[in-house]
């Protein structure tokens, strides 16, 4: 086991450690806790990369199978087994990746039970499931050759499988053609969301050809990586042959793609300098034009560096194509723009790492590559006393080394887990700001209601009067509250308690926002710091927490009422819930509870001398006001979306 492979495996085990932690967080706290997915971005990295990218990357299997078994090009035989193994592991990785993405993962097999063949996704699911079984049968002989399985029954199965290889390969090609293409037709139904540069009626053809090109290049990448890490001898002449075929396929893909744009007349729109057209040009260049061009040159095609560069570019480009279609070019409102959370990357990388480890396991223990049987016992570590290498033999050292890497990475991952990945999705908090007093003049409204007009100080109209501009979440839709008028109606200063139903010590009109701290979510009103400060630090603890040993929580502390008897005002409109001392409801609910309740009550009592539309929303929430506010308070931007649909 050479040093490079050792480092690679350690890194992969670290990724597996992180995957383990994120898996627990994902399945314990659901999708919302771990991903940045939203209603506007239902499909994210896991669908874009794991499913669509993974399926394309695993296309090498059927391409090479076709080349060798159908087109009879025997000299590409050494590529068959690694390609089939990559395809098999790729599809299992797709299935596992899907388990993470599905809301109800244990229903993953339902497409077998419920058929809805009008859906492109049904065709994808059916073909993937069938192709997975075909791949398992195609790959089974490699496993059954192992001396471990030479039981008579298994050998019979092995020989049966060997005989049925050709039909299997043909079935594999047919199924691959179907689902590689139908992955493209998934997006035919969303012409309005997918950017015209990517949307086209023949997307399935483009997906299929790009998959074939990618398959050829993936086989090249895989044998180069195997050479680098597993000391596998590279068949340069064969790879250059593949390179030429890939050049042909990628070239035709590029021509077809641009041609399709021209035919649909969209070509002109991509000349503008929007980021979509920039993305389109770079993607097409990376995925097809540059590699195809380079691969046509013989010198590039037959040099390791050239092959590596082109195959890397193609792989990157084709994966970008999948991601563009699934995520980036998929329109969604700005305020819900989607970028995968680090946990989504962790799961993707974790799954890839797990399957590379399994790939290496298969390569080392089964005859996948001709020249890598048992790993050659490399030169033992030098036992010279001054050596700085650990001499512990692999049998003892490797399990410890890998488990250490996994556990250390897992620990780091736990540290970076956001709060909602640990405790479940938590509603976003919207802090509440104080209301402000501003001058204004009541203006008669045509609908009979009294409309309040904001005044600018410079206008200086004498009869203007101060009233409160209540805009808790500063979204630019303030409610104008005529404090004076209410005071007059409720008989001046004795009536403060009606609204100010709980006041802080030595304060008879504590403002609403001081207790109702969050716009929508209940918030605790108990301020521990000030209590500790007032009760002379440590010595004060026992005044509330009598039982010293018990856990110091709200439940075990003495009740607030014992010290604060007089703060609840008798006149209060708000009926006193039992544990009023702890949680104050959301600011919106509190205001509506108090104002709307009172408005409806007074409207019901004497409808005559009370303005009719008192209980209508726009009496207080005046939709037109933001325009004025803009003039007076430019900083308060109206950030309200135009509407959910858009």
């Amino acid at each position: 086991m050479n040093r490079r492979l050792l480092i690679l495996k350690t890194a992969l085990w670290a990724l597996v450690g992180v995957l383990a932690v994120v898996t627990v967080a994902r399945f314990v706290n659901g999708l919302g806790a771990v991903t940045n997915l939203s209603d506007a971005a239902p499909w994210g990295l896991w669908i874009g990369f794991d499913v669509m990218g993974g399926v394309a990357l695993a296309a090498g299997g059927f391409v090479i199978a076709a080349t060798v078994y159908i087109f009879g090009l025997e000299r590409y035989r050494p590529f068959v087994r690694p390609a089939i193994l990559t395809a098999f592991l790729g599809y299992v990785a797709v299935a596992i990746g899907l388990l993470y993405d599905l809301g109800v993962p244990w229903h993953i097999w339902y497409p077998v039970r419920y058929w809805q063949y009008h859906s492109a996704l049904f065709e994808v699911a059916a073909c993937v499931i069938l192709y997975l079984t075909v791949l398992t049968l195609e790959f089974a002989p490699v496993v059954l050759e192992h001396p471990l399985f030479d039981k008579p029954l298994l050998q019979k199965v092995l020989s049966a499988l060997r005989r049925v290889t050709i039909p299997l390969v043909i079935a594999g090609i047919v199924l691959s053609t179907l689902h590689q293409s139908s992955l493209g037709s998934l997006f035919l139904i969303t012409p309005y969301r997918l950017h015209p540069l990517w949307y086209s009626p023949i997307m399935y053809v483009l997906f299929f050809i790009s998959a074939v090109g990618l398959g050829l290049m993936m086989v090249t990448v895989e044998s180069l990586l195997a050479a680098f890490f597993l000391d596998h001898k590279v068949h340069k002449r064969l790879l250059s042959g593949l390179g030429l075929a890939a050049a042909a396929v990628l070239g035709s893909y590029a021509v077809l793609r641009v041609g399709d744009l021209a035919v649909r007349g969209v070509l002109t729109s991509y000349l503008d300098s929007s980021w979509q057209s920039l993305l389109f040009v770079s993607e097409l260049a990376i995925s097809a034009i540059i590699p195809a061009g380079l691969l046509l040159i013989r010198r590039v095609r037959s040099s390791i560096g050239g092959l590596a560069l082109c195959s890397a570019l193609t792989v990157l480009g084709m994966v970008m194509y999948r991601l563009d279609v699934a995520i980036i070019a998929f329109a969604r409102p700005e305020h819900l723009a989607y970028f995968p959370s680090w946990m989504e990357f962790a799961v993707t990388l974790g799954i890839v790492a797990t399957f590379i480890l399994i790939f290496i396991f298969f390569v080392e223990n089964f005859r996948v590559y001709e020249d890598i049987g048992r790993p050659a016992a490399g030169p033992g570590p030098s036992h010279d006393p001054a050596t700085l290498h650990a001499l512990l033999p692999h049998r003892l050292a490797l399990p410890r080394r890998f488990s250490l890497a996994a556990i250390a990475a897992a620990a780091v991952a736990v540290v970076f887990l956001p709060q909602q990945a640990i405790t479940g999705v938590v509603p976003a908090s919207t802090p509440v700001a104080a209301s402000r007093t501003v001058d204004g003049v009541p203006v008669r409204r045509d609908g009979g209601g009294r409309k309040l007009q904001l005044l600018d100080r410079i206008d200086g109209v004498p009869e203007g009067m101060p009233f409160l501009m209540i805009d808790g979440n500063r979204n630019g839709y303030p409610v104008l509250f005529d404090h004076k008028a209410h005071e007059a109606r409720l008989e001046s200063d004795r009536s403060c308690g009606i609204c100010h139903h709980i006041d802080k010590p030595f304060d008879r009109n504590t403002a609403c926002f001081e207790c109702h701290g969050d716009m929508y979510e209940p918030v605790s009103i108990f301020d521990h710091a000030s209590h500790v400060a007032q009760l002379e630090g440590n010595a004060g603890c026992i005044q509330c927490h009598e039982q010293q040993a018990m856990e110091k929580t709200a439940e075990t502390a003495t009740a607030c009422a014992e010290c604060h008897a007089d703060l609840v005002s008798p006149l209060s409109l708000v009926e006193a819930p039992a544990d009023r001392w702890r949680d104050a409801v959301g600011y919106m609910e509190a205001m509506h509870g108090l104002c709307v309740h009172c408005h409806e009550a007074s409207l019901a009592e004497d409808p005559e001398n009370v303005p009719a539309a008192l209980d209508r929303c726009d009496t207080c929430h005046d939709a037109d006001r933001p325009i004025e506010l803009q003039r007076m308070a430019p900083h308060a931007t109206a950030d309200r979306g135009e509407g959910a649909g858009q």
Partner: protein
Amino acid sequence: MSDTVAILNDTTRCTGCERCVEACKEEYELGRDRPWREQGAVSDLSSTRHTTIIRRPNEHYVRQQCRHCLEPACVSACLVGAMQKTPEGPVVYDASKCMGCRYCLAVCPYGIPRYEWDRRVPYVTKCTMCIDRIRDGGIPACIEACPEEATVFGTRTELLAEAHRRIAENPGKYQPEVFGEREIGGTAVLYVSDRSLDFLAWKPDLGNQPLPERTWAALHKVPPLMLGVGGLMTGVYWVVGRRMRLASEATLEIKPSGTDRQRPTGESHDGQG
């Protein structure tokens, strides 16, 4: 098209009192709205709010709800058939079949289906036009609760006639066309409005072609493609196999040097047309 039940929303009459939202919440006990990260404002459509009022400037209130399209994209997209178009008309969701792939969220032209991202086992949520009430002969809760008659319930032909009557009677007041009449094959929820309602969909002009047709255009080629490629492969295999057998017999007799086959043409890339 059999005459399905429908809803006509008149935005000029809507005063934004949100009684329909309250009624919908009570009918299905949707609970308090909470500000989730994955949605815009609290009052947007969400898993706890199946219909909402979009507040536009100068007292322009539009009630957003599932359009119950006649040729629904979500029904054709759902691979397990969890979304179904009921004979009566409304599009309903069967949670027991859903596997949570969220394809319906992606395909809905109006972006209506919402997901319970906060739940450990999430399901899709959307307005089902109170299908149980309709089946018992009643009318949806939101319509019952609307004080202004801004949203009315009836058969689609009836309401279309009513809509066109209103447009005709006060020409200046309404936009000339009824929203939802022919768009993507027509929807059961129609709107008459004094201002353009393009903001309800992802893109202003969705065109009149029903969306499922676009997928079916590709999907119906699958069976022929399957046979075609299968046949092609078997044919090629048979041809190549025979030629190699002949070549090997030839080499056995006169033993020329191993001829190198010409470069592979790779998988045939004509694919389907």
